[in-house]
């Protein structure tokens, strides 16, 4: 199982980054916790889907748990009270290191979509999953995934268009 996880590692890290709003430290924490869950049997692969889909589901759930824990984390709460989060996406350090202008614009625009839209678009365009696979991974109906996909794509184009004009 460890070898199979290692084979999917790069894609898993990309998905973890997407689930953690491109927070690299959080993504690494989430990925480690997800790997440990799979390896110690707390998350069992029953073969009903591909290993990639199963692992991505574990990563997504783990990211949700970590985000919740981080929200309740006293240090995080204090930071939010002292300095409320900025709307400006360029403040994201992970975005700063994106040397490619087009990738930076995409990552910034993705952060302004709803979580569902962002997840569906990432799974389809970045991970090359089909819409049905994305729907199954996210636990939503295919029709609902299609709606998020269409609306997300339209919004993303608008945002990228604004970016080009700006």
């Amino acid at each position, binding site marked *: 199982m460890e070898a199979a*996880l*290692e084979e999917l*590692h*790069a894609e898993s*890290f*990309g998905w973890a*980054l997407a689930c953690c709003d491109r927070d*690299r*430290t959080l993504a*690494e*924490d989430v*990925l*480690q*916790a997800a*790997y*440990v869950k799979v390896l110690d049997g707390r998350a069992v692969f029953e073969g009903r889907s591909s290993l990639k889909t199963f692992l991505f589901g574990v990563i997504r759930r783990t990211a949700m748990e970590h985000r919740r*824990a*981080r929200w*309740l*984390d*006293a*240090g*995080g*709460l204090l930071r939010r009270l002292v300095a409320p989060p900025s709307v400006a996406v360029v403040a994201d350090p992970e975005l700063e*290191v*994106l*040397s*490619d202008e*087009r*990738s930076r*614009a*995409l*990552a910034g625009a993705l952060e302004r979509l709803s979580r569902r839209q962002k997840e569906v*678009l*990432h799974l389809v*365009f*970045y991970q090359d999953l089909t819409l049905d696979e994305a729907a199954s991974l996210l636990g939503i109906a295919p029709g609902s995934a299609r709606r998020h996909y269409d609306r997300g*794509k339209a919004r*993303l*184009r608008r945002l*990228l268009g604004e970016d080009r004009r700006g």
Partner: protein
Amino acid sequence: MSEDDRDLRDRFVRLRRHDAGRTPAFRAVLERSSRPRVPLALAAAGLAAVVLAALLLARWPRTAPAHDVALAQARALSSWTAPTDGLLELSVLEIPDSLPNLSLTSLAIPELTTPATTSGDSR
């Protein structure tokens, strides 16, 4: 696939390449030690303890009152009079110690005559 879709896919491919170049090693992720976090409940308990300690310290008597101070306080208390004590002094108003003698010499009180009752039955 439309032109817009191709543009989006191209952007995602570039982003994936960028991420792939910065992916940490599998072993490093598996064996990393995550940053310890302070749970909110623990922080709240700590804060409550600090506030309680501060309150106790603020209310705690700093030094025992000195003997002289205690004596002065006792004297001040013993000579204290209520502000309404003056109301109880009757220097102007005297209360007579006997009843006044009322002689009714000028007042003639006619004698009352009771009508005589007729004897016998009216029936």
